[in-house]
């Protein structure tokens, strides 16, 4: 009997740790450890082709990176694609959420229709869009031709390739963000609108004075999340090239940082250098996420 009581107490006290340990164990081995170890690798001259031989070189990889024109090129491309995709995406999402927040027939179908792009894979989406953006037989150039523009070689130039890649990102993520905004909109108390109505506020005024300020936490959340995702963008520029070369176009015109890291790591097998790029990207993401958080909070505050 005493043994059973002890076992019971042990079970109640100890078992919770057993239940959470798989998560922390797996995260430690496959998430945290690689990230930290990347830091160590980045201080080494570490080439896979040398059979795992490596040599401590201190900050040499970082120094080389800062002098590498390809690195700065990829940083510029990443920021350009990030701005081109995030800003229109979130504004459009806000508008779509506003539309969906009406009393509608076939409500669920409309919501599903808006979300559909998000459930498809990046690979599939990028392949389809690459075809639509084709120079000779692409539908987008055909449409542009009808109004007397083009044809544009979308892959060839910096601006056109950035625009095309941003379009892919926007298409895939706008609906998802719209649903997140919609959920927040529905949590806003109705009396706020009724009071505004009595005071004679127009629909537009209500949107900017009530809806947007109340969505502030959600807007911050979506901005930070899209920034973290946007700065790591890799699959779209890799596949948009149409060949399996990770240079992001013949002139690296749409090579992003993550893609540059992939090229250095898994094509050149320069693990040390690629790790330095990875850590730098990590730092950039952290800085941007924090800056974003502060900035969006400020903007949303001003509107109140």
């Amino acid at each position, binding site marked *: 009997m005493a043994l059973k009581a002890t076992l019971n107490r042990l079970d109640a006290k100890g*078992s*919770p*740790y057993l*239940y*959470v340990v*798989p*998560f*922390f164990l*797996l995260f430690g081995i*496959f998430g*945290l450890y*690689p*990230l930290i170890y*990347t830091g160590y*690798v980045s201080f080494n001259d570490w080439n896979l082709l040398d059979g795992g031989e490596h040599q401590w070189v201190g900050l040499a990889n970082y120094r080389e990176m800062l002098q590498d024109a390809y690195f700065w090129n990829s940083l510029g491309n990443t920021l350009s694609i990030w701005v081109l995709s995030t800003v229109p995406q979130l504004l459009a999402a806000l508008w*779509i959420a506003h*539309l*969906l927040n*009406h*009393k509608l*027939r076939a*409500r*669920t179908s*409309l*919501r*599903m229709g*808006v*979300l559909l792009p998000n459930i*498809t*894979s*990046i*690979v*599939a989406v990028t392949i*389809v*869009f690459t075809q639509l953006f084709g120079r000779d*037989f692409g*539908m987008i150039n*055909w449409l542009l031709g009808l109004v007397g523009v083009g044809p544009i070689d979308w892959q060839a130039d910096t601006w056109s390739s950035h625009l095309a890649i941003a379009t892919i990102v926007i*298409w895939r993520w706008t609906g998802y963000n719209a*649903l997140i905004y*919609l*959920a*927040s909109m*529905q949590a806003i108390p*109705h009396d706020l*609108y*009724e009071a505004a109505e009595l005071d004679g506020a127009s*629909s537009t005024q209500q949107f900017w004075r009530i809806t947007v300020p109340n969505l502030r936490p959600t807007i911050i959340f979506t901005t930070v999340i899209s920034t973290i995702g946007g700065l*790591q963008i*890799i699959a779209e520029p*890799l*596949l948009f090239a*149409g060949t*399996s070369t990770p240079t992001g176009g013949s002139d690296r015109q749409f090579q992003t940082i993550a893609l540059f890291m*992939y090229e250095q*790591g898994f094509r050149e097998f320069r693990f040390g250098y690629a*790790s330095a790029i*990875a850590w730098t990207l*990590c730092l950039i*993401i952290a800085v941007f996420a924090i800056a974003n958080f502060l900035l969006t909070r400020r903007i949303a505050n001003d509107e109140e």
Partner: protein
Amino acid sequence: MTVLANPPATRTEPPAAPRRRANRRGFGFPRRGSVWTYAALLAIVAGSLFPLYWSFVVSSQTSEAVAKTPPVLIPGGHLFDNIARVFDSTNFGKALLNSFIVSGSITISVVFFSTLAGFAFAKLKFRGRKLLLVLAIGTSMVPQQLGIIPLYMLMTKLGWTDQLAAVIVPGLVTAFGVFFMTQYLGRAVPDELLEAGRMDGCTTFGLYWHVVLPAARPAAAVLGLFTFMQAWNDFFWPLVVLQNNATVQVALSSLASGYTTDYTLTLTGTLLATLPILVIFIVLGRQIVGGIMQGAIKG
């Protein structure tokens, strides 16, 4: 049950007729959608559908038809020829099977372990619970993609390159899943029920098995859906580690990255890779939409 079956998204509206006049004046929110609201939304949905419809159109045409001006917009009769061609010219069947194995095992495992951890965090008392929970949530902000080089080295050391385990094992439990289940179980399982179970001599694992798992079913379904879709669509890590034993997304990317791309073939592959997800979405779209909106409110 009630929470997920009736998310705010699907709550029943008050009867429309008595309020119609008030609505026309704009009083009372949400407003009834006007013709323009519907027109705008239908245009957006059409834009969302078009790329998928287009890949279906191309998949059902011959290669020559794709290079026509104006473009062909109506499906043709060659869908099954093209599907056969995809399976002949690449190892697509193996890739599909790999994807099912990977996504299936990840889904089962994520649901099991997330519910287990969520149960501990939501319902059991233990030292350091709050701190560990904050840690677990914080880990979801760590960009995994950036640790990819050491992760690859680790897999080489384990001898897991080109083995499905390299993709399955790191995905066995996710921070999102743990957080999702903690939130859900906190409300869905009454403490009294657990206490009653304890009185009857249940061990904590017994409670998990007999009380928590059944109560978690609706949330487990949503989490399972999300996990399956995510695992199915995952591309970057499988690309790095499974070069010669591709999942369907990797196979698709190599299909598209030849120097002379056969678009008909590639878009047929796209359609095949999207189809399983599309079927799930058509059958369970309401739950998926509800789950995203539910998660948004909690997050």
